[in-house]
């Protein structure tokens, strides 16, 4: 694997984890009695940018390397379901996240604290998706070995 692909995979994971952390920060910020709009705005902005970065770097790795090299190894190995169920679900649910993040970002920046309940629920869903996708990614990586 080239260093470009290695970097793409590493940044995909790191940016995804940063994105989860920023949306946990949004969630915590929304539950506080004294809500800081500045904190919420910065957390949602960096969360959105992290997930867009993770989308691009992960997409590059997936399209250029995973399908040609990793996928055949998994499908011919002992755990083909790791690709058929986990990777297929992960890659498609991952498509939701930038849109959900963009709406949290817009609702916080334009909504002036008027939509805290549904924005909190949406942030919670983003965190759940992020954790689930990270765990599925770990299982898929384990299936290659």
């Amino acid at each position: 694997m080239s260093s470009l692909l290695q970097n793409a995979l590493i940044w995909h994971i790191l940016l995804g984890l940063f994105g989860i952390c920023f949306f946990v920060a949004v969630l915590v910020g929304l539950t506080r009695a004294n809500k800081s709009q500045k904190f919420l705005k910065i957390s949602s902005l960096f969360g959105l940018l992290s997930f867009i970065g993770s989308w691009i770097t992960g997409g590059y790795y997936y399209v250029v390397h995973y399908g040609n090299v990793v996928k055949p190894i998994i499908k011919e190995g002992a755990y083909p379901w790791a690709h058929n169920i986990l990777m297929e679900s992960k890659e498609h649910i991952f498509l939701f996240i930038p849109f959900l993040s963009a709406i949290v970002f817009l609702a916080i920046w334009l909504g002036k604290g008027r939509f805290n309940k549904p924005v909190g629920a949406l942030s919670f869903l983003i965190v759940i998706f992020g954790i689930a996708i990270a765990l599925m990614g770990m299982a898929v990586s384990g299936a290659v070995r």
Partner: protein
Amino acid sequence: MKSKILHSFIIGAVIAVVFIVAITIAAELMLPLKDFLKINFYHHWIGKGVAALGIFVIIGVLCLIFPLGKKDYWINFWIWMLVIAAAIGSLAITGFFIYEALIK
């Protein structure tokens, strides 16, 4: 205007999420659709992402043109719809791939 921008793009996001679920399942059931995405976008995943982004932007801009009402009730309603669509959509995608891999 800020409320209208928000309202418009939430509707765009709901439709984009529903589209992703529909095209994911449809492309697995109709291989010519998957091939069309591969041929035109290099990879089916890129095709789905680009099409969903296009729908998000086009629906968002179209909703900006038409009157939607400025009541916060409807913005709340559409954010909840997005939560429900994404939650059910993720279960539908996972359930579909479990069915395809283990049951079919």
